[in-house]
């Protein structure tokens, strides 16, 4: 069953807008997981838990560099799916329900991966539209330029909404099943998830920021300082 109590339409609109933000308009990075999953959590009345889901997804998204024509995961719509599924049963707490959190992160990863493909299909679709309009463009038709832009933006909005719907259709029942069947302790589950997310983030920082001198040394020094400070605070 879909989360009808969430009011599906606003959620799909959110997924559409955040999907649009990734590339087409306005690239203000409201589609980044740390924002998008928090917003999705807020839609479900679980803003704090949405933030925690978003933090885990942001760690994964750090690895993704959205370079031009390459295919990369689409985290905008995916984070809406992850934020909604991951905060299921949080009951206002900061930390999400462990099983829902795991399924939410998995759902977001799968949706982001599929979203990468839908972006490729979207670009191919616009290319097809552009191909049949090349003569009009060569004639300097403003109408053609505008229409292609509007078609592209509209198709991207619909892409984001459809992706969000598909992700929720598949992940919502899975999270319900997992929450009921989960046997591992909450602390162990959260620990495993955090190790995974933080490990990906650490490797991403190492790989992404490697191009400049001393960055890796600064990272290691920061890790040492951060670990000591956490130890002292705990």
């Amino acid at each position, binding site marked *: 069953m879909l989360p009808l109590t969430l009011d599906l339409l606003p959620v799909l609109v959110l997924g559409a807008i955040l999907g649009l933000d990734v590339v087409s308009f306005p690239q203000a990075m409201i589609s980044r997981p740390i924002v998008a999953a928090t917003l999705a959590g807020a839609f479900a009345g679980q803003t704090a838990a949405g933030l925690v889901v978003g933090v885990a997804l942001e760690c994964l998204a750090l690895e993704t560099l959205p370079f031009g024509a390459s295919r990369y995961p689409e985290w905008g719509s995916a984070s809406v799916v992850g934020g909604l599924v991951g905060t299921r049963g949080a009951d206002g707490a900061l930390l999400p329900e462990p099983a829902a959190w795991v399924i939410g992160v998995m759902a977001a990863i799968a949706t982001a991966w599929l979203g990468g493909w839908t972006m490729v299909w979207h670009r191919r679709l616009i290319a097809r539209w552009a*191909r049949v309009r090349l003569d009009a463009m060569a004639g300097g038709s403003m109408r053609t*330029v505008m229409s292609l832009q509007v078609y592209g933006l509209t198709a991207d909005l619909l892409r984001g909404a459809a992706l969000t719907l598909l992700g929720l259709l598949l992940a919502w029942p899975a999270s319900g099943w*997992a929450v009921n069947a989960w046997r591992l302790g909450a602390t162990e589950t959260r620990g495993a998830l955090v190790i995974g*997310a*933080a490990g990906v983030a650490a490797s991403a920082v*190492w790989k992404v920021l490697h191009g400049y001198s001393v960055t890796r040394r600064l990272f290691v020094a920061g890790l040492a300082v951060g670990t000591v400070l956490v130890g002292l605070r*705990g």
Partner: protein
Amino acid sequence: MAETVVAPTPPTGAPLPTGMRPGPLPVGTRASMLLRCLAIQGAWNYEILNGNGIGFCVEPALRHLPGGVDGDAYRAALARQCAYFNAHPYLASLAVGALARAELDQTPPEKLVRFRTALCGPLGSLGDRLVWAAWLPACSLVALLLFGLGAGPAMVAFGFLVLYNAGHLALRAWGLGAGWLHGLRLASALGANWLQRGPQYIARGAALVAGVALPFAAHRAIGGGASLEPVSLAVMACTPVLGVLLVRLHGKVEGWQLLFGLLALLVLYSTVLH
């Protein structure tokens, strides 16, 4: 050095006086171009890449060409600007400003097309280094640090958005203005020290923030208990191991793919095998 003659600002749609260099873009035209730059990738495709987007963004300036929107100059210029183009979306505003200036200066088409083609590479690589590989991760890591230090959802999300978009919008606005100011002499704008060295400084700051942010964020995400609890110690011990493994597997598997597989195993263990 030739003296630049500055024309009075014409109202939107009015042609600039011939034989004169354009002065500042009319406010309405500039605002329209800047707003359109936010949607520059709205029709990005594998046929002409960002060509249509460039035409879309330059178009308000082209209305000032002799003859206005019904003139031959307007149509020829729009056709030129809609041809194949690729650049980083934020730094493409530099191209938009420079190309608008070149068109209104009525630069010979062959020269303009050569200039346009030459812009693609530098604007792409510089933007990728500055934004995708430096500014964006830096802002993400600051947001993770805010979370780790105990900030609430609004503080973390708005903190990220304000910080990121301060740079984002400033870059787009600067690009449009600098492109218009320099026109075909855009190389001097691209050679600006902050633009060339910016990625390096941001990356260094981001690396330091990352190091501090990750332990704090991880600690809060597991519940923020005593740091000598078994789960905290496990996170401290296992996270670097996984990180090193992923660095060693670079190019073979992405971290998010590996994590999906590990989580699938966790689900299997906890629901079926446990």
